[in-house]
């Protein structure tokens, strides 16, 4: 039996007057996946999320959440979604526990389960012992984010959508939120929007990159690496004449380019090397670059392109390409 995708979006378009915020967006998210929604500011991330959560209607196209059409039955869709909006708005005058109880009632959590639901959400977000009776207005940014996430978890929704959950947090708090998202993996379908790339890379199974209202790439980090930056990359530390490295490799029939050269000490430099040849080139390169007169190779390590580079490559390519030419995206 075919499983119903948690989210399916088909040709979704939203216009604000003359401005098209998103144009013919297509993607699918399967149950239990943690998906990162990535894009520069103003790319259309929040618009897509607002449409999915039923706050806003689309100009054209369709979206299904748990097999239910958002436009036809927004009420039912809202029961399946826990949504944490951008900037995480909270009422400053309420206490944490009061607010979460109030939200549980709004989310139609049955009376006899209400207390347990609030306790569970507070426990998951580590609020139960630290901030239970605190007034929300007095909480630090990290705790506010936790309250927002606890709110999204209430009512045990099938899908949790978080718009920029780690914005403005310090590294400790980011780590806490990351652990929290890890705990949700498998139990809920999670969509996180962010423009903080390492965050998405660490937390998400799959990434969807959106730029100027269009989806420009979708897949796992590995798939995206192969698609956008297929060549091998290495990081080298050499002592001596660094410009001789490329010449040495070219002489042995290896097509290499030095992308970046950073001096780290007198006569020492760190090189960022791109090699077009495929296959496991590490041992070959070590052999070729050892015992050279002009330079001494101190270290050589393969370098995985990070999501930042993929993102830059994908958004650059999106100027020319559209989703229609990339059938892989709607997989």
């Amino acid at each position, binding site marked *: 039996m075919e499983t119903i995708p948690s989210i399916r979006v088909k040709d979704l378009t939203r216009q604000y007057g003359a401005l098209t915020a998103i144009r013919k967006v297509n993607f699918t998210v399967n149950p239990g996946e943690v998906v990162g929604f990535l894009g520069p500011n103003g790319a259309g991330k929040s618009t897509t999320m607002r449409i999915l959560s039923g*706050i806003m209607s689309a100009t054209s196209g369709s979206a299904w959440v748990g097999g239910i059409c958002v436009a036809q039955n927004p009420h039912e869709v*809202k029961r399946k979604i826990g949504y944490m909006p951008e900037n995480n708005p909270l009422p400053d005058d309420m206490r944490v526990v009061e607010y979460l109880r109030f939200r549980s009632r709004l989310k139609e959590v049955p009376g006899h389960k209400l207390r347990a639901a609030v306790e569970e959400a507070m426990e998951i977000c580590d609020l139960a012992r630290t901030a239970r009776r605190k007034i929300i207005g007095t909480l630090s940014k990290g705790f506010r984010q936790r309250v927002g996430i606890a709110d999204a978890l209430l009512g045990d929704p099938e899908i949790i959508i978080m718009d920029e959950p780690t914005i403005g947090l310090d590294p400790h708090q980011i780590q806490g939120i990351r652990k929290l998202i890890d705990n949700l993996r498998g139990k809920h379908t999670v969509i996180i929007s962010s423009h903080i790339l390492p965050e998405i890379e660490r937390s998400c199974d799959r990434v969807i990159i959106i730029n100027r209202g269009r989806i420009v790439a979708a897949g796992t980090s590995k798939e995206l690496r192969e698609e956008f930056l297929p060549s091998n990359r290495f990081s080298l530390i050499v002592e001596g004449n660094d410009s001789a490295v490329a010449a040495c490799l070219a002489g042995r029939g290896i097509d290499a380019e030095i992308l970046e050269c950073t001096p780290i000490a007198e006569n020492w430099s760190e090189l960022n090397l791109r090699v077009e040849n495929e296959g496991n080139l590490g041992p070959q390169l070590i052999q070729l670059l050892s015992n050279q007169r002009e330079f001494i190779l101190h270290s050589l390590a393969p370098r995985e392109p990070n999501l930042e580079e993929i993102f830059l490559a994908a958004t650059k390519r999106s100027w020319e390409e559209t989703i229609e030419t990339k059938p892989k995206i709607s997989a």
Partner: protein
Amino acid sequence: MLFISPHTYIAAVLFLCLMGFIYWAILRGMVNTPSETLPTVQFFSVFWIPVFFVVPLLTMRSIAGERSIGTLDTLMTTPTSRVAVILSKFAGAYLFYMLLWVLTIGFPLVTEKLYPNAAESGALLEVEPLVGSFLFLATSGLLFISIGIFASSITRSQLVAGMLTFTTLFVVIIGGQQMGNLADAGGELSSWVVAAVNYLQIFEHLDDFSRGIIDTRPFFYYTSTTFLLLGLSTLVIEAKA
């Protein structure tokens, strides 16, 4: 949000202080110049003074405030219907408004307790004008609060919502009275114009109610406009969410 916000209680204290002062002034006035009208009737005839500031204070935050801090969005992601949101905002503000008026019964009670021989027995707490006046406040309150809710639903600024509410209340309460004066002065106006203007005379309604004349026309006026404004507010938050 209304009941946890300090603004609400500040509005309540201001209201009770002002009304207490007005009641004291009326009693003092009666000591100096005896009057035929009961203090209760005189007291409720200045209902418009607190309405002008309490209604905007109670309603301006209701939707505009939620919209400006973004909690309206989180509210809209729950399975609660738009109608329920508007009705609960309205009910909260309306019940609090009525509670404030109910508390003013404390003034004659305190006076009677402290000075049992000062007034003729029962004059301060005569039931009929009290019931009539409260019935008037309860029905007119529907309209006043719904004006506030509607003004709050169309903007994201609490200040604008407050000013809009104040101005609209002014037009509805004082404007109706002025139109009545004009109609009286005109003399030759056709009867349907006079009837229409009389229909909007809020002070006349109070007069009738406090004398025990319970007419269905004011009921219809207040409840129909309330439904209209609350319906419009629902449409506005549906479109502007």
